[in-house]
């Protein structure tokens, strides 16, 4: 197992490098001239040349990439001009908030999605199946930011069950309870789309598995139907559900951008959008590389989970 994890980690290196190349190339496409931006349009050519030399902008593209990569590997992601602090500090501060939100939503959508899919498959064409299918259809069709706004309107403004927005109360202590109070609505709104996708997949994976001969064997043994569904069938179906959970984690992370805006959640997504609007390119660049790298590592964890679940995978 240890060597398998190591092998997967090593195979992530080219992917991470590829990500950095892609981000670098996209950012290199940006029109305009940083020197002019810094010095203003009346700068002398000598001053422009000096700034370019100081910033390393006179070097060829390849050399610039390696300088940038080297800096990142030593933890230097540059400095955000709009916030006037190191990019990495800001990203790390924000990433924690995003992880709380996206992590909770991911757990929610995994559990709810798989459970809904299993129930739907076990009661195929029954009332529960039709009800779940209908709710799932709405779930995958509704824009998460609209859903979030409607939840605020109904549950925060009208019913006053939850606070309208933010991560912590403005007055009062930062207790776990107050965090949960603020977390429930955004996490649910974020989980809905992925729940729908997972439920659909889990349903068809379960239908596929329930037709297999070993399910008939389990029934022939006299295993209770509840156990046939939740142990025998679900265990086998998880083999095809888990990779999709990995993919959906990416969608949850993506959806977090909208939810963070709607609920004023102080996460990376809101930071990125603000950075784009203020054209704080270094902050965008650093945030994108950091989150993408975390996502790659998360997917390795998914692969490892998969190999633990399926003894037929050679580790």
């Amino acid at each position: 197992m240890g060597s398998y994890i190591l092998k997967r980690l090593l195979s992530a290196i080219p992917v991470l490098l590829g990500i950095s190349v892609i981000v670098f190339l996209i950012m290199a496409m940006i029109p305009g001239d940083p020197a002019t931006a810094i010095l203003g349009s009346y700068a002398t050519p000598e001053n422009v040349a000096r700034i370019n030399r100081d910033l390393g902008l006179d070097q060829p593209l390849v050399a610039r990439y390696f300088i940038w990569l080297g800096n990142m590997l030593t933890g230097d992601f540059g400095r955000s001009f709009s916030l006037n602090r190191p990019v990495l500090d800001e990203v790390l501060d924000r990433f924690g908030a995003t992880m709380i939100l996206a992590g909770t939503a991911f757990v929610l959508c995994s559990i709810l999605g798989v459970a809904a899919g299993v129930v739907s498959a076990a009661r195929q064409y029954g009332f529960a199946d039709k009800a779940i299918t209908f709710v799932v259809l709405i779930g995958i069709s509704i824009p998460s930011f609209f859903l979030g706004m409607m939840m605020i309107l109904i549950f925060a403004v009208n019913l006053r069950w939850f606070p309208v927005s933010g991560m912590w109360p403005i007055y009062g202590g930062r207790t776990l309870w107050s965090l949960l109070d603020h977390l429930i609505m955004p996490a649910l709104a974020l989980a809905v789309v992925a729940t729908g996708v997972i439920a659909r997949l889990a349903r068809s994976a379960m239908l596929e598995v329930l037709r297999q001969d070993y399910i008939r064997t389990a029934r022939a043994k006299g295993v209770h139907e509840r156990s046939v569904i939740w142990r025998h069938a679900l265990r086998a179906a998880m083999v095809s559900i888990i990779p999709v959970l990995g993919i959906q984690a990416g969608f949850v992370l993506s959806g977090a951008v909208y939810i963070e805006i709607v609920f004023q959640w102080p996460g990376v997504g809101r930071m990125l959008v603000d950075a784009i609007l203020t054209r704080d390119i270094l902050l965008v660049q650093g945030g994108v590389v950091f989150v993408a790298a975390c996502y790659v590592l998360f997917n390795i964890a998914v692969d490892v989970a998969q190999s633990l679940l399926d003894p037929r995978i050679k580790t």
Partner: protein
Amino acid sequence: MRDFLRLLARNQLALAGLIVLSAVVLLALVTPLLPLQAPNVTNTGDRFLPPFTEGHLLGTDHLGRDLFSRLMYGTRLSLAVGFAAAVIAAVLGAAIGILAGYYGGRTDNVIMRGVDMLMAFPYILLALAIVAALGPGLLNALVAVAAVNIPFFARNIRGITVGIAHKEFVDAARLSGMGDMRIMLGEVLPNVIPVIVIAMSTTVGWMILETAGLSFLGLGSQPPVADLGSMLGEARSALITNPHTSVVPGVMILIIVMAINLLGDGIRDALDPRLRSGALTRPMAATTVRRDGPVPEAREGALLDIRELQTQFHVKKRVYRAVGGVDLEVKPGECLGLIGESGSGKSVTALSVMGLVASPPGVITGGRVDYKGTDLIGARYEQLRTLRGREIAYIFQDPLATLHPLYKVGDQLIEAMTAHGRAPKEGARQKAIELLKSVRIPNAEKRIDSYPHEMSGGMRQRAGIAMALANDPEVIIADEPTTALDVTVQAQILSLLDDLRRSRGLAIIFITHDFGVVAQLCDRVAVMYAGRIVEEGPTAEVLATPAHPYTKRLIACVPELGEGRRKLAAIPGLPPPVDDLPPGCAFAPRCAKATPACTEPPIELMPFAGTRAVRCIHPENDAAAREAAE
């Protein structure tokens, strides 16, 4: 194509989606022709008018602009951008996928590596990076959304193209001197179009959501022009005071995307052949029972008594009479052979006993299965479950498919016991090891922790038998347990079953298509043809003097020792389809002795030579059999 449209039309939800989507698209197309107010003219005196105000059907927004007009123009813009992104992503993605799949090798490797890199991003990060580089704007948002979806198309199309690139018709085109470009456009492209359509139909809704999302963030369409996303974004600040300005564009997005998703599901179902016949239905916990006629009485003396059993498969409007009134009985310690060609209904008969016929489509429509005075067909699920495996156990063919691939053999064995509360938790493992030993699995202490895929075929079959024995059942139903095994292993398994029967007093119903196996193991044999028993009697007598012409032909197929192996196919013709059985004798069309009377129903199972029975009006070996009986 016509089939496709018909399938689509049959799907009511997809049709509803199509109608709604068409209506929205049509409205969006004619929007500039409608007598609407100008969408971008502000009138701050009329801010936030509620819906149904005079002159403003849906009210006005924060700048006093007519919401209905803005909604129509916004819908137009959102649809256009969403579809454009989908088309761009599909065209570029398909081009990349076809190139990679067609050329293969290094080209493929390089391209697909790049695609993998792009897919390693959570999609919005890539989209945000692109928008950050190009600057906010609707066109840039479109580019970003199309770009992040290209890898998805490329990967799908490449997979299909790889399969096509090595087909004969592509080779033929290549040999005839066609250029690569012409082959890709003329031969490959038409074959991947259904995949492109499916991929587009499942992603276009998503792309509309994504572009709306970018606009919502303020990175898409810029004021004063608004698509649905930026309408929502602008309305957000007035969410609490004037929710209608948010609800109007939000609901519109929901309607559009939902209609597209419904239609997309319909298109996918219509184009994906696997789903076409409704193949993906799951069997229920027990076979459906729908008995119309009277339930027959059980006979005396039998341990398991099957009376007039009828099991059918209802597939759409067709009814397949897999089992058309079967009578069988087995006494304690007896081994009954049930023999017939594949499709004769022998397995379905066996599975009907414990309600294990896949249902849907299976339905038990008549008869009785009596076990110690209980009618199993009418039994409640819970009662059936407690008997399954405990009193009547099954051994199935092909244990690689019938054992759960992800659980250890030992755990599956232990579960067989704990399901009936038979084994204490601590002793279960020891009992499982003993069971594995009793079926002569060497090194049972270690084998108990093996997964099925780590065992050999013979070993797995023994494990299957051990599982059947776990609860000391009274009856074992073995459904071709040796068919997948080679001859030496087969002989070992048969002698094992024979020993177990003698030492434990088991009753066995042994299903096979091999008379050689029946001769070795069974006291009595029943021959099945087209869902009915055509002959029954003591094995030795039936083998020596078969009475039914079909039995005679079957026995003629069994190789004698030292002779070459002949096949069942030596009987001319095929069994009749069980959804269209001929009246009278089902074997008559293939029978050399058939007379007009053979096609007149009904032909009953008649007593023959004392202990035997035959369903034939011109039985073979009539005189010889009578003589032997006396």
